[in-house]
């Protein structure tokens, strides 16, 4: 078992409230320098919060995530549309293009005045 697997086991125990204060201090010191373990700790807490909420606990809340505002969504949609148009133009240039001229318009004609 590697070092991180051991710390993840401690994270699970800490989320369940089974660690002593010195063990919690040691875990906090490690998490402060380990981004992977910090993420694992956050995930462990979110799982337990979700389970508590599904079990009907009124105080349980999931961690709120950042959401885009209305103006930001508009900007993203506008950028996607512009990107689609540019991609379409490049694809048109890549795949070739034929002029949309009716055949009869390009045929010779003899005009008697």
């Amino acid at each position, binding site marked *: 078992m590697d070092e991180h697997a051991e710390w993840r086991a401690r994270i699970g125990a800490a989320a369940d409230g089974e660690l002593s204060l010195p063990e919690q201090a040691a875990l906090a010191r490690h998490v402060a320098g380990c981004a992977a373990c910090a993420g694992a700790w956050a995930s462990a807490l979110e799982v337990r919060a979700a389970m508590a909420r599904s079990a009907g606990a009124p105080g349980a809340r999931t961690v709120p995530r950042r959401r885009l505002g209305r103006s930001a969504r508009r900007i993203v949609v506008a950028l996607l549309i512009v990107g689609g148009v540019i991609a379409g133009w490049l694809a048109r240039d*890549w*795949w*070739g*293009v*034929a*002029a949309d*001229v009716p*055949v*009869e*318009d*390009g*045929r*010779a*004609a*003899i*005009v*008697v*005045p």
Partner: protein
Amino acid sequence: MGVRRSSFRNALTLSLGLALAGRASGQEPGVRLTYRLRVMAAHAGDTIEIAHAEVAGPLDTDLRLHLAADSAEVGALLSVLPEPDSLTLDGQFLSRRNVGRSRHGLPVWTEDQYQRAARMGWGRAVRVLPFGRARSGGRALWLLATVDRTAGVGATRPTETVEVVEPDVVFTAEAVARPRRATVTLTLERGDTVSAPRVADLVPDGPPRAIDFSRGTGAATMLQVALAYPEPPPPGRDRVLARGADEVCLRVNDPAGQAPARVICGRLNNVARGVPLAGGDTLFVTFAWPGAR
């Protein structure tokens, strides 16, 4: 409206058939046909002539033209179906237009083949729009075509005059007249020794003729030559434009040897063409129109 168009087509088809039947009977003696073409272009609100051509020949002479400009080109075979007071100008057209490019950046062309016909008066000009009525781009070009008939005594040789003023435009006009006879000039060459030129007036599909070539003090060489029309080209562009219709082929046979006959074809344009023969000899052949009788 549809009935009127249909009756017009029927009348046109009938007149084409009658006129073709008349053409098949042969050439009217003493009448020559003259096509006059002027290639016009719009330039700065004005109209300028950028090329012109005049092609004349016997009454069954056709006109083969090629015009290329910008991103389109057209080849056509114009023929005349004469009537007493008017004529029907019949055109077989082959258009080639650049319609875009492929994913590899190569130009994409579309080819089209069709027929146009119009009844017109002798000496009256008609406007031929070679690239259609509505050009999508480039400059507007059109031809003013006039067909006239004049009296000519026994002249079967067609004449061609083409002048292009603007070098950006490719324009050629050729007479397409089926030769009834041909003056063939033959010269036999081996190394530095050349025979005296032999001139023969030959008729296509006529009997073969034996021709003796003497070179200096050596022994004479006898060759058997016969004139014929070339095989018609396969269906397609060449057949539509009557390629080969104004050519003859000379079949050369050495009766003394076992070598297969050699065939050389060409227009009657006074250009010498070489035919390598068995034994190291080279026969130079020149086709020309015979003189007026």
